[in-house]
């Protein structure tokens, strides 16, 4: 196995490049319903990732032949703004974005009760405004909040989080540098009430035992993110537990968009 040029270490004395411990998540802030025109929307800041999601539908499907007689037609578009990356990203959808649109759809669809809305379409639009590693997980997490905000009936929320390997160690929630210079990345999405895994990808090199360890850590991360999702929805729609509210406020820090 090729070892990275041992120039910069990603973990020094148990601390990662952004100051986190190996099994620590980045700060996550979720806003429910920031957009006016969309039927449902969400904004998520996950570390330096900034992502907006809009949901339209159930509504008429265009083009019409896509309509299904027995359920809603569910579509996702994952897209990165040209200014979201270090080097300008060309606005046309890349192969990566097309694949991520597909895996996002596959991750979310098991949760949506599409059979309640035959002949209609439900669209999820994910716009990455700034990316810093882990955008697909943040996008999926925000999408299920936007779907809830749109009132789309769901069996469960969908929550995503990645684990990976850097400097020979299995860690939670890789940022961009760790993703690029690390040894492996394992993004996972689950429906938390059943534990059903609806997204699982991996690239890099892991032994089977390490892969199982990374999967377990990612699942643990998902459970933590799930709490943030619930807090966000309670904050927007319900009488949230006040102790949680305070905690939620301190997480985001900067409230300026």
């Amino acid at each position, binding site marked *: *196995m*090729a070892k990275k040029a041992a120039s910069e270490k990603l973990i020094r004395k148990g601390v990662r490049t952004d100051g986190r411990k190996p099994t620590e998540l980045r700060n996550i802030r979720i806003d429910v319903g920031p957009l006016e025109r969309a039927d449902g929307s969400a904004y998520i800041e996950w570390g330096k990732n900034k992502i907006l999601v809009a949901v339209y539908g159930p509504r008429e499907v265009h083009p019409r032949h896509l309509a*299904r007689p027995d359920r809603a037609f569910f579509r996702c578009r994952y897209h990165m703004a040209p200014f979201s990356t270090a*080097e300008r990203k060309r606005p046309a959808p890349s*192969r*990566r974005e*097309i*694949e991520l*649109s*597909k*895996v996002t759809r*596959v991750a979310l*669809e*098991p949760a949506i009760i599409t059979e309640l809305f035959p002949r209609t379409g439900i669209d999820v639009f994910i716009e990455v405004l700034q990316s810093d590693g882990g955008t697909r997980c943040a996008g999926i997490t925000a999408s299920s909040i936007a779907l809830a905000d749109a009132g789309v009936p769901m069996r469960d929320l969908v929550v995503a989080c990645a684990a990976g390997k850097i400097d020979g160690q299995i860690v939670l929630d890789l940022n961009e540098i760790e993703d690029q210079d690390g040894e492996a990345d*394992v993004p996972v999405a*689950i*429906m938390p009430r*059943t*534990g*059903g*895994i*609806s*997204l*699982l*990808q*991996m*690239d*890099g*090199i*892991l*032994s*089977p035992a*390490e*892969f*199982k360890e990374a*999967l*377990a850590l990612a*699942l643990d991360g998902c459970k933590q993110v799930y709490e943030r999702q619930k807090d966000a929805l309670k904050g927007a729609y319900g009488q949230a537990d006040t102790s949680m509210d305070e905690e939620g406020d301190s997480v985001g820090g900067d409230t300026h968009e």
Partner: protein
Amino acid sequence: MSDAYKIVAKITQKQIVDGLQQNTRLDGRGLLEYRPITTELGLIEKASGSALVSIGKTKILTGVKIETGEPYPDRPDEGVLTVNAELIPLAAPDYEPGPPGEDAIELARVVDRGLRESKAVDLKKLCIVPGKQVFVIFVDLNVLDHRGNLFDASALASVLALMNAEMQAYTVTKGGELKYRDSTVRLPLQNFPVEVTVAKIGDKMVVDTSLEEETVIDAQITIAIGKDDEVCAVQKSLFGTFSQEEIHQALEIAVEKATEIRAKVLRGVGGWLDGSE
């Protein structure tokens, strides 16, 4: 994948699902048994390497072409590997001409990830002048007949085409000029990943699903396994979910099947994996 080809009689689907409960499949295979795999190598003379792989009636043809080009700015001293997949309209009634769609792109990227992450090709050895000129390896795979399990067949055809490939030997002059010689050399390969797709139908795990079986899959996962049993790429696809336990099960199956296929199908091709390295 798309709904259009799901034209399989309900009664057949029921037979498949019921049969699996008794651990039998319509074509008589075991649950963890592949259809016969056959390979034909080097049948496209104009390509640097090529492989036609059949798994049962599924047929994939992969060609490797080698050109020179510029490296990626963030990897100035490495050659470039690109994988492209075409679901051409002759392979199935619902495939249409046009630029690659979502399914073709996913297929290409899953094959690409298996090769790239396992470091199948030593790209550092394909650099001519750092930052300026490198070799670019194009792996183009064409689905010729779609009878199920495109991921595994495509990955197999691609690694075989690379093993089959030869490039012209060359030297680089002091001035950084590329000079070809009259002989040929093998590509600098160092890993031989095999991708195994495990499908869940009801509560049963099966490998190498046929087209008919693919209409009743609940969820599937493709796992690329390198020569030291390392996991180098994973892609869960299709709707439906797995439990953590089921993923562990799929991983075990993938490691076992990959080892088996590597020994039976890859060993000795192009002089690789004959036990000497």
